[in-house]
């Protein structure tokens, strides 16, 4: 497992990845187990329908809690899953370069015959694989919960919304990676990436309330994550393309800035 920077980065995360997996599995299963109780209770979604703002903020505008898709969208995919994926990705992205630099281990690593770009690409790949593991756990957890409560859910579509969530997580992981690569400061990277995440989340949730602002949602990565409702309609290729392009552009910024600056002692 210590073959190269990529495998070593995964190896470093083995314990944290295990705990994250346990947490996400529990979250997915428990949430799904509540479905029968909620759907039998009838019009719980009514409260959300009364306030578009609340619905947009806390359930992604999904107010139909009686269908499996509406329930999962509002309870899991609109807010909880992005929060979980983003925390993991931002922490991994900021730690990749800036974390090693601040701890002082980057000198030793960079004295080996590896280029800065190689290290970056390996670390980006490790982050992508690690978050994909969490995505797989989430999908399996929902599938297991759905089987237990006999929920009528397409596992294929369920997988697609998870992939959409992964792509969103990777965008913000790449954002944190780029900030960390440019500044060498882990704290700065976490703070700014999180601020961008919160800002664009609110943008996507609240801009639709004012007609004039509605087009601004297109500036938010969250729009490309969920607005096409991948759990019902499957992935929107255009939206996938936007998220992937954004990630690669941020990776490009990371490569560009890291190559051009002095590494801190």
């Amino acid at each position, binding site marked *: 497992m*210590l*073959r*190269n*920077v990529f495998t*070593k980065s995964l190896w*470093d995360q083995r314990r944290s990845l295990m705990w994250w997996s346990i947490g996400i599995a529990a979250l997915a299963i428990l949430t799904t187990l509540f479905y029968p109780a909620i759907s039998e209770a009838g019009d719980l979604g009514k409260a959300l329908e009364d306030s578009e703002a609340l619905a947009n903020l806390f359930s992604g505008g999904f107010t139909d809690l009686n269908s499996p898709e509406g329930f999962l969208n509002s309870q899991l995919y609109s807010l909880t899953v992005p929060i979980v994926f983003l925390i993991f990705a931002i922490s991994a992205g900021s730690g990749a370069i800036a974390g090693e630099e601040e*701890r*002082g*281990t980057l*000198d*030793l*690593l*960079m*004295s*080996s*015959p*590896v*280029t800065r770009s190689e290290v970056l690409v390996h670390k980006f790949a490790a982050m992508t694989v690690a978050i994909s593991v969490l995505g797989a756990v989430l999908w399996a957890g929902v599938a297991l919960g759905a089987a237990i409560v006999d929920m009528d859910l397409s596992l294929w579509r369920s997988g697609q919304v998870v992939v959409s969530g992964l792509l969103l997580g990777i965008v913000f992981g790449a954002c944190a990676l780029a900030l960390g690569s440019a500044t060498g400061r882990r704290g700065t990277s976490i703070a700014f990436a999180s601020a961008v995440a919160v800002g664009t989340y609110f943008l996507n949730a609240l801009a639709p309330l004012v007609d004039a602002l509605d087009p601004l949602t297109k500036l938010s990565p969250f729009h490309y994550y969920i607005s096409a409702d991948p759990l019902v309609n499957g992935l929107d290729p255009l939206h996938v393309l936007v998220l992937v392009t954004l990630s690669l552009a941020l990776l490009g910024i990371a490569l560009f800035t890291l190559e051009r600056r*002095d*590494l801190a*002692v």
Partner: protein
Amino acid sequence: MNAVIRTENLTKFYGDQMAITDVNLEVREGEVFGYLGPNGAGKTTTIRVLFDFIRPTSGSATVFGLDAREHSREIRRQVDYLPGDMVIYDRMTGREVLTYLSNLREGVDWRYVEELAERFECDLSQRVRSLSRGNRQKIGLIQAFMHRSRLIIMDEPSSGLDPLKQQEFYNLVGEVKADGRTVFISSHNLPEVERVCDRIGIIRRGELVNVEDVGELKNRALHKLEIHFSGPVPPEAFSNLPGLRDVTVEDGRVRCTVMGKPDALIKAAARYEVVKLVSEEPSLEEIFLSYYSRDDSDAP
């Protein structure tokens, strides 16, 4: 002789803070070169340019004739490094760290790694986090020696080592030199460079003030002389003599520091009955200080 490291007018500013300026350094193949200066003089900055961790403000650096910036990877393939502040992945064991670092290059002879670990009495199965500073330094030394690279650059290598391990380190440097390989050691520890180095470069406040053979340096430098006479001597006879410094005369005893030739002193002393002549071999410490005392304000 080939220059393994060469810098030309190497200058580095951090913002408007000067770290090194116009450093012209040449390290020859097969020698042990000591880069001597107090903390903050610019030693680490010079080394970090060689590894392309930082980019010079002006001037250039080459290693094996390759530009440090353009061919960094090729250079790093053939150079080993011991960072001054030995920070390693603290959640890994020593063996894991060495495995990782060796995998990033080709071919490490693990028997040699085991041998090095034995010589430094270093337990590789412990997690780095639980190791003392000295033991971390040992892992740093092992990784610097284990690839048997053509050039080993070490920043304050013996810091934190006990005297026995220091000796082992000096032995290893001797073995590398016997192999015809080159060692570059930065240090603020004079007895250390005196012991292992062939030539030293003295750096002070970012400027390379002198490079010479360790032997020559000692020859050329100041000598302390003490002359005992049979009776009291007049202080005036010894004041204002050329090439003398710090002259004290008391009770028929003259003490002074001689710079260059002691001729004037000997001729002045010859007028009286000399009982005893004591010459003190200068330590490098004193030689070193003499370079610094030229500039007075904040000399160490």
